[in-house]
């Protein structure tokens, strides 16, 4: 297997043993970018090779001096392009920010710098993280490495496709309603959305502040634990940041005997044939491992996605008001200041972003606030209450991540809400602020990956990690790699 296709934990061990160098890993990842970037895409900005190699060189020097900083030290990674990187363009995949070069770092990036990670580039995304197929990117493109005619999922599509195709060893994405888990599911990798407040949001360009959370996309749940150990940290620049002591990688264990898994059968029933079969097989696997299945019946399935779109659009309309062309970003002059705002925003935002701003403005406007926004917030309380009750009966909740596997790119949608269908199982974790993972659990007949979602109680990341770890010890779906063009020349390790 090529270095670029290996999981983080394995590369990290090889660096510690000095059987490879950080420069060799970086070189192989750069080589894969050369092979895959034209077909899979996934990046908006790729750093200069010289810069990447210098960063890897520094790791090699630290290793030689016996001062490796962390398991991430020397590992090439990608950051979703909504995380501010000082001196490196940060666009949110929007024309409005195509020239924006931050003068400060997002806290999560600062943590990865301190850990010694090797930043390779800024990953493509749906504009302002609004979308579920990565087809709303205004500046780049991303396709599914398993079949480049198909979508990678979104909105962290670039973060997912780059990892799945070996153009990065791991990445960070953000998840507002499923934007880490959905593309992880579509691309056959592991995606993790931590508990709301676990990972600092300072410097991450906001979509919906009460739902947004940053998390890792990786090839193996062990990698997830390693990355979480670096980014789950208190930050006094984020007023919602939690103080949690973490040692996820160290505490990872596969003894899940006696764990109670809640399943709402109606969610499994709602999926396509292949997904349903794979999820039912996974449930059997957990039973074999000594877990107990608890039947759940949520009464919020009908209202949940609607509540999510109301809350997220309302918050987006407010958050995106700051993009006015005055102090940063592109400005399109008008006759007066108001015209300049309007020209700038009308030129800079894409259609989906405009739809969400308009929808958000509608649900917050007088006369409709109580019927929509306030009602959605009441539903949020209901959903949280339902999960609180569920976690009295079980340790985690299992469901499919999506209804179907990755679909053809460029598919014309009759209604914008048709695209929201991809998101029916994921937003409940955001609404209730809960940690949730998507892990590979099979392949459809057409070869596309299928994802399994596990949702845990607040701050019970370790439970989810252990559940996923035990599952990955017993299955090999996460070990499969898509075939990349230009494969098979060398680099057998």
């Amino acid at each position, binding site marked *: 297997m090529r270095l670029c296709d290996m999981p983080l934990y394995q590369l990290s061990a090889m660096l510690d043993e000095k059987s490879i160098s950080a420069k060799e890993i970086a070189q192989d990842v750069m080589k894969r970018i050369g092979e895959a970037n034209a077909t899979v895409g996934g990046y908006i900005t790729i750093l200069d090779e010289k810069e990447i190699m210098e960063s890897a060189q520094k790791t090699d020097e630290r290793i030689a001096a016996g001062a490796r900083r962390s398991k991430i030290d020397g590992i090439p990674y990608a950051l979703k392009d909504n995380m501010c990187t000082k001196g490196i363009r940060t666009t949110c995949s929007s024309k409005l920010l195509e020239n924006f070069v931050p003068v400060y770092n997002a806290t999560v990036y600062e943590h990865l710098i301190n850990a010694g990670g090797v930043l390779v580039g800024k990953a493509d995304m749906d504009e302002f993280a609004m979308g579920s197929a990565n087809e709303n990117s205004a500046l780049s493109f991303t396709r599914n490495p398993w079949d480049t005619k198909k979508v990678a999922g979104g909105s962290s599509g670039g973060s997912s496709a780059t990892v799945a195709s070996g153009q990065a060893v791991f990445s960070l994405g953000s998840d507002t309603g499923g934007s880490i888990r959905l593309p992880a599911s579509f691309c056959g990798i592991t995606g993790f959305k931590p508990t*709301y407040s676990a990972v600092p949001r300072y410097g991450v360009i906001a979509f919906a502040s009460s739902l947004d959370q940053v998390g890792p996309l990786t090839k193996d749940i062990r990698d997830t634990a390693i990355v979480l150990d670096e980014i789950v940290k208190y930050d006094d620049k984020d007023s919602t940041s939690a103080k949690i002591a973490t040692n996820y990688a160290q505490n990872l264990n596969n003894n899940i005997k006696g764990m109670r898994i809640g399943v709402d059968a109606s969610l499994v029933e709602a999926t396509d044939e292949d997904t349903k079969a794979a999820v039912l097989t996974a449930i059997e696997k957990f039973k074999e491992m000594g877990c107990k299945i608890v039947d759940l019946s949520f009464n919020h399935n009908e*209202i949940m996605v609607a509540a999510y779109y109301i809350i997220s659009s309302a918050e987006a309309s407010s958050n995106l*008001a700051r993009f006015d062309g005055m102090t940063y970003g592109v400005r399109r*002059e008008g006759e007066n200041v108001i015209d300049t705002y309007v020209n700038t925003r009308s030129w800079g935002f894409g259609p989906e972003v405009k739809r969400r701003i308009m929808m958000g403005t*509608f649900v917050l406007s007088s006369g409709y606030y109580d019927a929509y926004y306030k009602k959605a917030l*009441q*539903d949020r309380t209901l959903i949280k209450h339902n999960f609180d009750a569920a976690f009295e009966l079980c340790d985690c909740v299992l469901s499919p991540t999506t209804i179907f596997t990755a679909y053809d790119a460029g598919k014309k949608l009759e*209604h914008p809400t048709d695209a929201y269908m991809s998101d029916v199982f994921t937003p409940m974790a955001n609404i209730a602020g809960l940690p949730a993972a998507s892990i590979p659990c099979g392949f459809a007949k057409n070869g596309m990956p299928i994802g399994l979602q596990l949702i845990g109680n607040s701050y019970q990341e370790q439970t989810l990690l252990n559940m996923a770890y035990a599952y990955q010890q017993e299955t090999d779906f996460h070990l499969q790699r898509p075939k990349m063009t230009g494969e098979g020349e060398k680099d057998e390790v």
Partner: protein
Amino acid sequence: MQISSDDVKRLAELSRLAFNEEEIAQMQENLVDMIQYADRVNATACDMQAKEHILPLHNVFREDVVQESLSNDEALKNAPESEEMYFKVPQVMEDE
């Protein structure tokens, strides 16, 4: 729920967005579709307390201490237009 083209124009004005006639018709259609979808929130009779936020946080304070900040040059680095140490923006106050 009916949305007229005048409603769309009013929302556009509030959102600081401009649309041509064709885009207004399209947006009107989209909004009707989205609002119809959003109407599902009214499917259950839920009279629980509205929650803006999932965390039980109140009044998060930190010490008010002077810290290092951005330099003037850095703060203006992304400005579409600047002059000396200021952002330059279109005239905001009307002439008498």
